[in-house]
């Protein structure tokens, strides 16, 4: 087996890039929505056959065991080629959590099936009354013999209808303080009592679902980590997620689209437009310089602190402003659905706008990120 971490960075990057360019289906590059499982199945198989589906996993579970520096390169190359995210939460989220907190039996059962995509995962965290204030969640799991009986509902569950399994946070002790009475459970979505209702978003896509639990019997063996310690389990991943979310790649792609349209329509000769365009371009490039600092930190093997929240705020808000300007650049065409021919440049004005909209809401809203920075970085009082 290749020791990827022993390779020179440039060689590794070239090998990853070559494979992605040769094998990834071109029609799925830079799609402006979440990819569905039926579209991504073949690509998953290809990656898995090559041993590349789980770059962050250790060897013993069939991963590439990449260190932080190589991991950054792998992710950069995925983004560079515009490769869509498969329903990958098993690889990025629940897999690593099971490795860290799960029992031997859980690891032996779930990890191989997750890697092969026999099990596809969705995340059951948010609830109608527990969004930014996640610890206010009310879905209850009551121990009854060797099962938990789960009642409640989850919402904004991305691609639940493509998933076979859900990992969820449920309240197992109603008397304890907010964060301390929560447990981390996993459930097969075919378990009786679970129903899904797709939710259509502003773009017209059914990317997320509401998930209802009505007297759902979940085996006690599906508890990951200690009882009432689910908050610790769920929090274990948040740092790296915010770096990935703060990557400038998607807004850079939006900027390229905007520049092509602006050029095709002669908008760069309009001083007012050109000033706004270049200000946004600089906002993005300066944000990329900031991103570069955090990447260097990860490559040095240092943990990311709460400072990384600023990256998510800046990248996502800049992305939205770019997408807004693209709609404006389209004039009347900018609000007509579909792909337009703008002086030879194929352009969809609305989808980039919709795609960027929830970016300041998911993964911790911009307001929550600002709260985090105020408290933990600026040390402002509460």
């Amino acid at each position, binding site marked *: 087996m290749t020791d990827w971490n022993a390779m020179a960075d440039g060689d590794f990057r070239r090998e990853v890039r070559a494979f992605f360019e040769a094998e990834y289906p071109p029609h799925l590059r830079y799609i402006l929505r979440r990819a569905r499982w039926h579209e991504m199945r073949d690509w998953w198989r290809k990656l898995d056959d090559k041993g590349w589906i789980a770059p962050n996993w250790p060897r013993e579970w069939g991963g590439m065991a990449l260190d932080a520096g190589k991991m950054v390169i792998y992710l950069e190359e995925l983004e560079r080629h515009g490769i869509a995210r498969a329903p990958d939460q098993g690889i990025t989220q629940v897999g690593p959590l099971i490795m860290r907190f799960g029992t031997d039996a859980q690891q032996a059962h779930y990890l191989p099936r997750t890697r092969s995509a026999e099990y596809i995962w969705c995340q059951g965290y948010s609830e109608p009354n527990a969004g930014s204030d996640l610890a206010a969640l009310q879905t209850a799991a009551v121990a009854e013999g060797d099962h938990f009986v789960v009642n409640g509902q989850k919402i904004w569950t991305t691609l639940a209808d493509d998933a076979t399994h859900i990992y969820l946070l449920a309240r197992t002790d109603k008397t304890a303080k907010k964060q301390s009475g929560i447990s981390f459970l996993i459930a097969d979505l075919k378990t009786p009592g679970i129903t899904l209702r797709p939710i259509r978003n502003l773009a017209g896509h059914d990317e997320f679902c509401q998930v209802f639990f009505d007297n759902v019997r979940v085996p006690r063996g599906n508890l990951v980590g200690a009882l009432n310690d689910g908050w610790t389990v769920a929090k274990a991943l948040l740092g790296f997620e915010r770096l990935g979310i703060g990557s400038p790649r998607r807004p850079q792609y939006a900027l390229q689209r905007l520049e092509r349209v602006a050029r095709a329509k002669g908008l760069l000769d309009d001083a007012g437009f050109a*000033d706004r365009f270049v200000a946004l371009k*600089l906002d993005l*490039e*300066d944000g990329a310089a900031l991103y570069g600092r955090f990447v260097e930190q990860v490559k040095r093997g240092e943990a990311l602190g709460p400072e990384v929240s600023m990256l998510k705020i800046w990248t996502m808000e800049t992305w939205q402003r770019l997408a807004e300007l693209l709609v404006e650049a389209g004039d009347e065409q900018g609000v007509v659905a579909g792909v337009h021919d703008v002086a030879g440049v194929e352009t969809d004005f609305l989808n980039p706008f919709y795609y960027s909209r929830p970016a300041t809401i998911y993964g911790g809203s911009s307001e929550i990120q600002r709260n985090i920075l105020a408290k933990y970085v600026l*040390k*402002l009082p509460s």
Partner: protein
Amino acid sequence: MTRINLAAVPNAEHRRMLADSVADFTARGTDIARVRRLRGTREEYDRAVWEQMAGFGWLGILVPESYGGLGLGLTEMAIVAKGLARALTPEPLTATAVLAATALVAGENEALKRESLPRLVSGALQPVLAWQEAPGELDPGNAQARAAPFEGGYRLNGTKRYMPGAAQADAFLVSAQSGGTLALFWLPKDTAGLRFGLETLADGRCFGTLDMRDAHVPQSALVARGIAAREALDRAFDFGATIAGAELAGVMERALEMTLDYLKTRIQFGKPIGAFQALQHRAVDLHIQKELANAVLDEALAAMDGGAKAATRAALASRVKARCADAALKITREAIQLHGAIGFTDEYDAGLFLKRAMTLAAWLGNANWHRRRYAGLTLCGKAEGKPAGGDL
């Protein structure tokens, strides 16, 4: 005053030592009372403090060792400029040790370099670059001043403006059109035909104005001509704009610290005002601007010290100046607002930071000017693949 042999220790270590010595100097060698005392005076700065700075070797950071300097890079100069700007030090580091020193070093007059650079480094001679003539006109090629051949030398006519740090200048590096090309000349202050004036700036420093009427200099006063003069001026401008960005970074950093301290200690409605979410989020946005400014600055400094080519260097300098100017203005304006009425008093220091940010932002191209230059350098013109406006 020990002069450390910085070249003998590794980068990270010598940069830390340099930052420490600047912090130590600003803690003991200058204070806000001195800054206030010098505001609006015709001295503008304190020559004794200037000589102390020279004693540390800071004036020679960009001067090669063969001319008595330290032969270090912009990264080191930025550390010094940022640290001094945190204390609003009015001494003309960027005007003389960056703009004038860079132009002189890039020039072709070897005898002049041997004679004047060691004296610049020691603080004995304080030259400034006299190149700009009209507000917002930042292309050195558009100089209107003329240098005509006269009695084996040159006779100069024209007016140079917007020179900070010129109040006590001993010499001027003057750009002028000469025989159909751009040229750069060395004019000692006592050259016959010079008239010098001062305009007081918002922050109490001055812009110098140099009026030349048949100012006569010998042939040996020619510093560079043609492409060499143009390159010397372009390089000096980009380095100057970048280090002015570092000064802005120092100003914004200290102004934000003051503001955060105030948010933590000012009690209203029974709690520190920094506990209110509306103010917390504003403070966070200022912090993000400061971090963006530092990220761009560090990226640009590393690239320039790595020998970035002229067009890249110009684009980087413009990124730095645009971001640092806007961020410093936003932070220092918000510093006033978040302090409330006390922030609007002259006795409170927040206003000094706002006014320094304003003068630094306006000098060597404001944010809008730099964004437009950046657009010209980086956006391809209508002819596919051909850069438009990239005149460097």
